């Protein structure tokens, strides 16, 4: 007799995204990154003074205090408080991954920047330290990525890039700073793509957000170099509740890259970022994320873009780490001939669950979309593809293709696919294909007969499997990604 099928209760197709249940789990101090000692190139850092929010947990008072400390305008304080109310009131949807390990009251919601290292290299888990060694990452970068203090050379790099950008009129700031220096533009767009009450995690982020990137690209400007999150040396580089806002004005283009393939150690176990992107007429934006959080992290993210006439929006999303990730980058195609793409890779090793995919909403005629998802599950890992293609009436001649392929490497691993479709316009072409497979024994045998070990052969096959997406990554990411997969296959890490 069929085992009880646990129904996925409602909510995924309607809205953004992660829901959470409230249960207990003790958390260590999540203080993570630090400002380098000498802030030579210092632009105004609003967080230079200290803050005495030394307690865990959340309340309206703490939210107000965060806002007051940051010196925010009244409208932002009011919005944070309203969002907090929504967060408290909103019931929990029970679909998606198992989030019973999160305790909202056991988290520090705001950390004051300090100039002192708060952790030692010895506290970083073994498997992470070994990975750095094997990936050949230099000493200084290792410490930085592991959240341990120290100067980092990218400061110099960033300074030069910044000068170029300023000449073009491009704004690339921390979100906190942008609120102060460009309040009208900020207010015009903030919360219009992901409103405070979109889902519980978005409400939480809107209440306690800190850090993240703000990017504005003026009309017709093409930013050639991919902008990278870690260029901005700032306290909250790997903050828990980053808020990113990107506006690409008409005819412009920009590529933003977030994260890195090397495992990133965080003592904070809940990361809930919100990313809003506005792609105006004729503009082009690509947002690449490679996430490899340590395996204690719950990574629950709401990412959404709106794409206007003749524009292109691309999410490239790599999920390698974390204990649980729930993330469905979305694109609302609001103008004719807009095009949206989501390229997603998910790798789940033992005790990991990657629940990811993408949502594309066709709300104008002649719009097109493509979702390509490749997932791999190993050990006791579980990958779930969850996606939505929605076509509103009147969106004639729209086309969408979704292609999901999953590779299951071990008996105990698991893969799911939940592709939702709501098609309310006749004159369209919508298709979805998915396969689930294992590594072919003939392929494996052939490669091993050429002298490769089983692990090497598997790694090669897996790398080939994800190749179509990896080739879209910036070079250094691609190289690291391939090596990381190799390590995972050898069982040497994680």
């Amino acid at each position, binding site marked *: *007799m069929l085992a009880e099928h646990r129904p996925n209760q409602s909510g995924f197709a309607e809205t953004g995204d992660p829901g959470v249940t409230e249960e207990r789990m003790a958390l260590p101090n999540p203080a993570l990154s630090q400002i380098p000692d000498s802030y030579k190139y210092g632009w105004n850092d609003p967080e230079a003074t200290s803050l005495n929010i030394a307690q865990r947990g959340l309340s309206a008072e703490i939210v107000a205090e965060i806002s007051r400390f940051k010196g925010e305008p009244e409208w932002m304080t009011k919005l944070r408080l309203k969002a907090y109310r929504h967060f408290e009131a909103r019931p929990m949807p029970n679909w998606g991954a198992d989030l019973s390990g999160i305790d909202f009251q056991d988290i520090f919601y705001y950390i004051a920047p300090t100039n002192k290292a708060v952790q030692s290299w010895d506290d970083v888990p073994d498997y992470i330290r070994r990975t750095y060694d094997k990936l050949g990452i230099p000493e200084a970068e290792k410490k930085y990525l592991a959240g341990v203090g120290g100067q980092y050379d990218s400061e110099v790099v960033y300074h030069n890039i910044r000068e170029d950008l300023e000449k073009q009129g491009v704004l690339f700031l921390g979100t906190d700073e942008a609120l102060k220096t460009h309040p009208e533009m900020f207010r015009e767009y903030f919360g219009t793509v992901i409103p405070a009450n979109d889902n519980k995690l978005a409400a939480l982020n809107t209440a306690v957000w800190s850090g993240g990137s703000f990017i504005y690209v003026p009309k017709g400007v093409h930013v050639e170099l991919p902008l990278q999150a870690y260029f901005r040396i700032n306290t909250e580089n790997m903050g828990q509740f980053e808020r990113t806002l990107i506006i690409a004005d008409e005819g412009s283009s920009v590529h933003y890259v977030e994260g890195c393939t090397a495992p990133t150690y965080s003592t904070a176990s809940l990361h809930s970022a919100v990313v809003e992107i506005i792609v105006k007429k004729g503009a082009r934006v690509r947002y690449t994320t490679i996430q490899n959080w340590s395996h204690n992290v719950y990574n629950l993210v709401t990412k959404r873009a709106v794409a206007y006439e003749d524009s292109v929006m691309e999410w490239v999303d790599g999920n390698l780490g974390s204990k649980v990730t729930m993330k469905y980058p979305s694109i609302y195609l609001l103008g004719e001939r807009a095009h949206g793409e989501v390229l997603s890779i998910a790798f789940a090793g033992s005790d990991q669950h990657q629940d990811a995919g993408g949502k594309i909403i066709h709300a104008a005629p002649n719009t097109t979309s493509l979702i390509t998802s490749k997932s791999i599950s190993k050990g006791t890992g579980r990958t779930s593809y969850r996606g939505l293609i929605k076509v509103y009436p009147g969106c004639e001649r729209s086309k969408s293709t979704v292609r999901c392929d999953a590779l299951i490497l071990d008996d105990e691993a698991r*893969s799911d696919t939940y*592709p939702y479709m709501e*098609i309310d316009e006749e*004159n369209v072409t919508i298709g979805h294909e*998915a396969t689930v*497979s294992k590594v072919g024994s003939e392929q494996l045998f052939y490669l091993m007969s050429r002298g490769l070990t089983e692990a090497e052969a598997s790694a090669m096959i897996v790398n080939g499997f994800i190749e179509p997406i990896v080739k879209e990554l910036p070079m250094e990411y691609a190289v690291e990604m391939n090596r990381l997969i190799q390590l995972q296959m050898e069982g040497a890490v994680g």
Partner: protein
Amino acid sequence: MTLTQTASALDADAIGRISDRLDEPDWLRALRGRWWERASVTPPPTGQEEEWRRTSLDALPRDVELLLDAPRLETYLPPGAAEAGVILTDLRTAVAEHPDLIERLLGQADGPGSHAHFWALAQAAWTGGLFCHVPRGVAVDGTLVARQSIPRADVAYHPVSLVVAEEGASVTLLEEIVSPDGAAGWYGGIAELRAGQGARVRHASLQQLGDGAWRVGAERVVVGQDAVVTTLNAEVGSRVTKLGLQVLMSGKGGTSKVLGLLAAGDDQQIDINTIQDLAADHTTSDLLYLSALYDRAHASFYGITNVRHGTKQTSSYQECRNLLLSPQAGAEPIPVLEIEANDILRCGHGATAGAIDPTMLFYAQTRGLDPDAAERMIVRGFFEQVVARIEDETIRERVLSALAHRIGSTEEQERAA
């Protein structure tokens, strides 16, 4: 005394009275009683469940009369079948004439979880149905046909169809149900099909209920070791159809082909949930559901392929394709995979929704067909993917004939050319 019973006013006593009226043996009365209890503790869906979010049951006509006198079951057995021991009869007669078989086979298992309440309800409150039994090793040539015609629209009727092919048996069965247009009625028929080891079953269910009918149906198909089962659901009628179908591949080496044809127009809503449960090694299950949607019709499909942990070398495919033939038609095909084993031979799914390719339409018209005829021809071509997989000619013809009012016919095409 005329006994009337409102479907919504059923209770344990009423169930007892149904049993009395049919003069049933004690074991059957007790069986109904147990299922009634199950129905009482299994609440109907709230609409929050994944499988029930897309179709509301608020307007289900619960207060109509329960049909206590089942309509006559018209049956046809090919020559020699009865002599070989094949049974094809209505369920009440089967209880009287083959009590041992019925006691062993009827009401012994649960149906699809999503429809648990309705499965239990029908097991308790059936007043008619079908029993088809093919003994061990018996291979029947020709097509068995069973047809019921419900006399009134505004009734509730929840027949149980029980089809069992024992080890090594081979049979082809077509079931048909019709009812008149007009008032709203509730058709809650359920079906159970069991194929024993090495059995071969070709089964089709053709539904042509009236335009006020609400069909809330549940079906369970069990495929034994090395058995091969093809099952087709052709949904032509009803106002709302909410069907739950569970295909359990319980024996090694079993194969199932699960086919569906939906042609819906006006304000019809068809909502299908399927589960392909691959629970044994070397099993194969391929599903193909096609729908053609006209006017303001809407088709939802939520299907799960579950490859169970520890199984080896299974093959499965799930495909749902929807042709939208009018601006207000809509479709929601959602094929879900839940794969818990890695030693898979093949596994995949696909779903499409959209209009006829305009190039095809144009081309057909250049061959002298007017737009309507061209469209009908193309839809017939689209349906061919399923029709071609129907091995039995009788079933094929009956299904195409039932669809002719929407998709025309080959003769018509030839006449027009």
